């Protein structure tokens, strides 16, 4: 789960990490008021959206007066932000952050993420902050400091001090940076984060250590024990179909193509997209119905697929394990009765209860005129691509 920058800042501040004064507002007029309340001469107005590329898109603006703050916020609220991460249609801005700008002496990067290979969370730090850490990692790997946490004991104090020293900090600034790291690590563990990133952490010209921008994501699997975090979720940032799928326990991601896919298992779902593309088609979505799918869930899956009006065909690929083929066949028929399949449907079934499923489909043949069966995955992909071009 993702949260907005302003929410991440609040979590950092609550954990005792210093952030510049800031206010989050939902109107241009409030942005002007926020500027006055912050009461420093130079401030920054930042659109609160999940997508990156805000700066280039003009959705991060330095302002010197309440009027400028209002103008900047007004622009952000009235225009959709378009960046490489949003797609051409862009996204609407609902909130902006008005924050005190600071006089920066140097920018650093501090992050905590899982290191899969070491099976533990690791600190990533760099004295080259303020830019994409992936770029630094790629171009100058020696500028990246890694400090794995102890899997059971967390980040030891000395390890935090070691990172601060390697970043070049000395004196009381070193211990301030070590404290930022220790508090970030505690935050990561406390809330089951999947990333805690402060970029940049800055040293100001008057010697202060401040977190300027922050990104915090959470482990979806652990949200059950963090109702306070769950309450911070912003549904406006999600595709309505994706939200609807999530409610039905379906793992659905909308994509740009026109061939809808319904598959069980994430790996097989990705492989199905791959094989569609290999045969010249373009998948309209990723959809893993999961092992424990119930009849109603499977019908809802078809409803969601068909409500994407770009869809020109449906490929069903089920290799039954936990999921049962017969249940999917029944859902297909139910969906046909309810919403009707105007587009071609290619079905490939294998695994648990496959014979029962084939019998069910054979019996309902007349109800599903656009239905074709496939013998294997290549056959299925070929047929759906052929039927939709």
């Amino acid at each position, binding site marked *: 789960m993702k949260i907005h920058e302003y929410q991440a800042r609040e979590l950092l501040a609550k954990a005792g990490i210093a952030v510049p004064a800031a206010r989050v507002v939902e109107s241009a007029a409030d942005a002007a008021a926020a500027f006055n309340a912050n009461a420093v001469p130079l401030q920054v107005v930042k659109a609160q959206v999940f997508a990156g590329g805000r700066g280039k898109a003009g959705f991060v603006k330095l302002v010197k007066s309440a009027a400028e703050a209002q103008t900047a916020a007004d622009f952000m609220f009235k225009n959709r932000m378009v960046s490489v*991460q949003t797609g051409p249609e862009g996204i609407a801005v609902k909130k902006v952050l008005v924050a005190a700008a600071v006089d920066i002496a140097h920018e650093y990067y501090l992050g905590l993420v*899982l290191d*899969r*290979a070491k*099976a*533990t*969370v690791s600190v990533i730090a760099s004295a080259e902050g303020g830019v994409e850490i*992936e770029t630094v*990692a*790629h171009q100058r790997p020696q500028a990246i400091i890694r400090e794995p946490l102890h*899997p*059971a004991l967390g980040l030891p104090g000395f390890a935090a001090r070691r990172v601060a020293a390697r970043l070049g900090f000395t004196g009381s600034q070193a211990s301030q940076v070590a404290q930022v790291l220790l508090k970030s690590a505690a935050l990561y*563990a406390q809330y*089951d984060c*999947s990333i805690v990133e402060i970029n940049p952490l800055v040293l100001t010209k008057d010697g202060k250590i401040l977190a300027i921008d922050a990104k915090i994501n959470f*482990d979806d*699997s*652990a949200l*059950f*024990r963090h109702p306070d975090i769950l309450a911070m979720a912003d549904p406006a940032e999600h595709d309505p179909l994706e939200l609807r799928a999530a409610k039905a326990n379906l*793992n659905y*991601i909308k*994509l740009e193509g026109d061939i809808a896919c319904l*598959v*069980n*298992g*994430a*790996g*097989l*779902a*990705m*492989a*199905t*997209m*791959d*094989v*569609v*593309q*290999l045969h010249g088609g373009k*998948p309209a979505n*990723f959809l*893993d119905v999961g*092992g*424990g799918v119930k009849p109603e869930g499977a019908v809802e899956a078809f409803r969601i697929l068909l409500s994407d009006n770009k869809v020109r065909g449906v490929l069903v690929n089920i*290799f*039954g*394990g*936990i999921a049962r083929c017969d249940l999917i066949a029944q859902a297909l028929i139910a969906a046909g009765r309810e919403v009707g399949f105007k587009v071609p449907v290619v079905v490939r079934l*294998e*695994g*648990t209860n496959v014979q029962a499923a084939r019998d069910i489909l054979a019996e309902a043949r007349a109800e599903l005129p656009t239905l074709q069966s496939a013998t*294997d*995955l*290549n*056959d299925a*992909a070929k047929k759906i691509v052929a039927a939709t071009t």
Partner: protein
Amino acid sequence: MSILVHKNTRVICQGITGGGGGAFHTKGCLDYGTKMVGGTSPGKGGTKDANGLPIFDTVEQARKATGADATMIFVPPPFAADAICEAAAEGIRLIVAITEGIPVLDMVRAKKFLAEFGDQVTLVGPNCPGVITPGECKIGIMPGYIHTPPEPGKRRVGIISRSGTLTYEAVWQTTQLGWSQSTCVGIGGDPVKGLDFVEVLALFQADADTDAIIMIGEIGGTAEETAAAYIKKNVTKPVAGFIAGRTAPPGKRMGHAGAIISGGEGTAESKIQAMRAAGITVADSPADIGHALNIAWRG
């Protein structure tokens, strides 16, 4: 022979009464011929399940009463990591954790806990279909009938996969092509897990009754790259492979946490390249995994 499980493996199911699939799949394993000997369900000790298997409150009691040496875990996510630790602490040799959705930090701690038992215990999963040695022992949720037990004249393939249903695809293709399977291991898609490719590859390489290997990976992480390097250096048997997610858009989370591409690490291309450089025959289409194995077999 085979790896990890065989006809004498004695298996309990932790979470045998739960709605997480424990009851359903205990029956499935029994039907396949697995020596299921009991299960646990805290608070229900002393009763029996629908198959007449004894239920215990703790693994300590179950192990004492049944002599189980393996466990299949269906315990719900909030308690599953603890169940894994329990099995290890009680001397269970093989832990197969099916449960999906265990918090990552729970697994970080559980893996540390397990590390203290060294070679005494092996974890497969979590979030995996399980392990099967066809004709002998099935621990997990895979449909049994798609597998082919080894018999004279049938080449025997060992299968390792991060993805459940994609494993079935590979199994089914090899069966269709007239191969058999020595053992199939679904290592699971979670970022922190038990056995990874390398450990299973080592087992298959050492197993006299495995003739060739199929390895199925997906985008995210660098386990496939590491495995490819290992294969280049240590594996002499023919290996075919497939990587799912070639066409997945970057930054989107596809199903399990395994499938996030971040930066230059863990893309399908980097994996496929590394695997081909290690001499692995990588199928372009998931429909051609069996075919790729035949090519690898011919060398």
